[in-house]
């Protein structure tokens, strides 16, 4: 080799790798409190540095396994520190690794170009600090640009494979120069090799970043789609039940006429009593709820049919006219989802006496309040104001009912609160009345 350039000090690489991990830990949802996180980070930095320094003297064929182990340690550090699956940790770990490779390469090149030969410790530290600071500062800005809805990644196998592929190719091409072999893509010139490495790493960072942004966008769009379909679903249900309820009413009136005719025909006292009783009994089945708002009536009726079937007692006091200013779709979304949630919960209760739902729509001052209470045994596990359900199969739809309620209520500048009081789950909505859209 003609133009020898010293290798990047192992300590520098360790710091770069650690900083890359830290970026993702701060970006994503941490698993522990601040102090515990700080402790874990310090330990991780020490371990990473020790490992890289101690393996620095090993023969060349050990170099690749060592690098793999270093990446493994980064993944482990991420897995311990952030909420998420192994896939999430690997995804972040590889991104952090590529970023670290780039940062270390750039820093070392700058250092060799501007400072080399002047080896005071102060200058070394200074060079390390400002270059890493600048690089990670810029990356931090970039990576925080796309919006993550719940500070979690939920990486899927296909997405993970893409990043693994990117990382592997970047790693291979950028380091091939440093192997003692002659290939088409290599240069034996030290500085040139360093430049190739830096440029390749830069390409890697760009690829990983582009992929990250795209992923976030697709995710956000999909979330919106699901929300829309939840909304649409409640609306469709409403349309259907509107028709069937009209039919029931029609039958009911028919029957009423029949009774009237029957009564007119004959007049023994006993028969009349019997008929009165019959009419009374039929009235029980007239499940029509008259709240003053047609949409509310229809939803309540259709949901009370479901409750009747499932042996759930649903009581409701509702001034439907208070919701007159809201869109049909929005009423469907709030009432439909809230009641569906309550019904789902009640179905799991063994004792039918305890299957109770209470609902109220009323006004106080300039506010409309909707309150849904349902009896349940157990404790509520909340995450971001959304209770965690036990339905693990439908992960995609997890919490979308409540999210859809929040989304709708936000349109009216209202608020949603979910709490547990004794053995009751309570979902409460407050909507200011003066925001009526005219």
């Amino acid at each position, binding site marked *: 080799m003609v133009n020898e350039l010293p290798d990047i000090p192992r300590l520098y690489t360790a710091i770069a790798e650690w900083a890359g991990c830290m970026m993702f830990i701060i970006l994503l949802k941490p698993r522990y409190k601040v102090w515990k996180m700080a402790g874990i980070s310090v330990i991780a930095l020490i371990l990473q540095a020790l490992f890289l320094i101690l393996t620095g003297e090993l023969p060349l064929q050990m170099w690749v396994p060592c690098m793999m182990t270093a990446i493994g340690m980064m993944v482990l550090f991420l897995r311990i520190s952030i909420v998420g699956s192994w896939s999430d940790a690997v995804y972040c770990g590889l991104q952090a690794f590529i970023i670290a490779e780039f940062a270390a390469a750039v820093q070392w090149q700058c250092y060799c170009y501007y400072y080399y030969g002047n080896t005071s410790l102060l200058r070394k530290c200074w060079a390390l600090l400002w270059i890493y600071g600048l690089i990670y500062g810029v990356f931090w800005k970039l990576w925080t640009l796309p919006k993550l809805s719940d500070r979690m990644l939920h990486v899927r196998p296909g997405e993970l494979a893409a990043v693994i592929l990117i990382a592997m190719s970047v790693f291979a091409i950028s380091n091939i120069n440093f192997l003692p072999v002659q290939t088409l893509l290599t240069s034996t010139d030290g500085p040139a090799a360093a430049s190739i490495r830096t440029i390749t790493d830069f390409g890697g960072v760009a690829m990983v970043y582009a992929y990250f942004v795209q992923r976030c966008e697709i995710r956000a769009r999909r979330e919106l789609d699901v929300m829309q379909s939840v909304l649409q679903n409640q609306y469709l249900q409403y349309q259907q039940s509107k028709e069937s309820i009209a039919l029931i009413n029609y039958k009911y009136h028919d029957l009423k006429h029949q009774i009237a005719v029957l009564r007119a025909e004959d007049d023994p006292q006993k028969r009349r009593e019997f008929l009165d009783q019959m009419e009374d009994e039929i009235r029980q089945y007239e499940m029509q709820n008259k709240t003053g708002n047609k949409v509310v009536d229809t939803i309540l009726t259709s949901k009370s049919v479901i409750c009747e079937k499932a042996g759930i007692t649903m009581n409701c006091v509702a*001034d439907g006219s208070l919701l007159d200013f809201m869109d049909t779709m929005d009423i469907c979304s709030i009432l439909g989802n809230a009641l569906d949630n309550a019904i789902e919960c009640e179905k799991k209760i063994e004792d039918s006496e305890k299957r109770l739902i209470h609902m109220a729509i009323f006004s106080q001052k300039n506010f409309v309040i909707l309150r849904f209470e349902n009896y349940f045994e157990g404790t509520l596990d909340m995450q971001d104001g959304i209770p965690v359900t036990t339905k693990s199969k439908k992960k995609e739809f997890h919490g979308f009912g409540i999210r859809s309620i929040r989304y709708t209520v936000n349109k009216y500048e209202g608020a949603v609160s979910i709490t547990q009081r004794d053995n009751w789950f309570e979902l*409460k909505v407050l909507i200011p009345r003066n925001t009526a859209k005219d």
Partner: protein
Amino acid sequence: MGECAVIQIAIVEDEELYANQLKGFLHQYETEKGINFEISYFSDGDGIVYNYRSQYDIILMDVQMKFMDGMSAAEEIRKVDSQVIIIFITNMRQYAIRGYAVEALDYVVKPITYFAFSERLGRAIEKVKRREQQNLLVNIRGGILRIAVSDIFYVESQGHTLVYHTASGVFEGSGAMKEVEEKLGKYSFFRGNKGYLINLAHVDGLQDGCAIVRGEKLGLSRSRKNQFMEALTNYWSEVK
């Protein structure tokens, strides 16, 4: 304050069978929870309306009765008493759904089960306890003021002075906002921003990011707005 007074309950029910059942349930509740009730009984709506003096905490009211039905009786009662908690007892859901007109947001359907009844009664008792008048001693310039918590509209902090905006006027006192917040936080008070501690019961509406309290616009800080709204939501759904 800690000891709870006897809770006054009226049963208004024309069918003796149900009236006795309710009495039985109330006695069972008394022994289970160690609470004392004083139970009055009326066999028709006009009985309770006649000479009504707001003497009850909770009224268990049948909806269908011979002379005066539950809804009309509740209307009459509401003209005099806005505080009493009315729980309808009904065999027809359709009638009780309009309970909001007389602020009766709860009902129990016949045939009554003890479980459903006791759960709703528990809620009503919680509300009764919440409504007990609470007083606060406030250091103001020139002495100490004793004031009902519900009469305080909001507390404003101006430098080192605290300004109490109340039903009986504006008072200035010394003290730190934090201390007052600790004292009042357990009632329905919430910080709108650094300068205001607002009684949620007196928030009439919201406008342009401000809470309207007795005609005055009090700014809500961006960071607290969501929490404030949530507290307001909880307040109203717990009180009513």
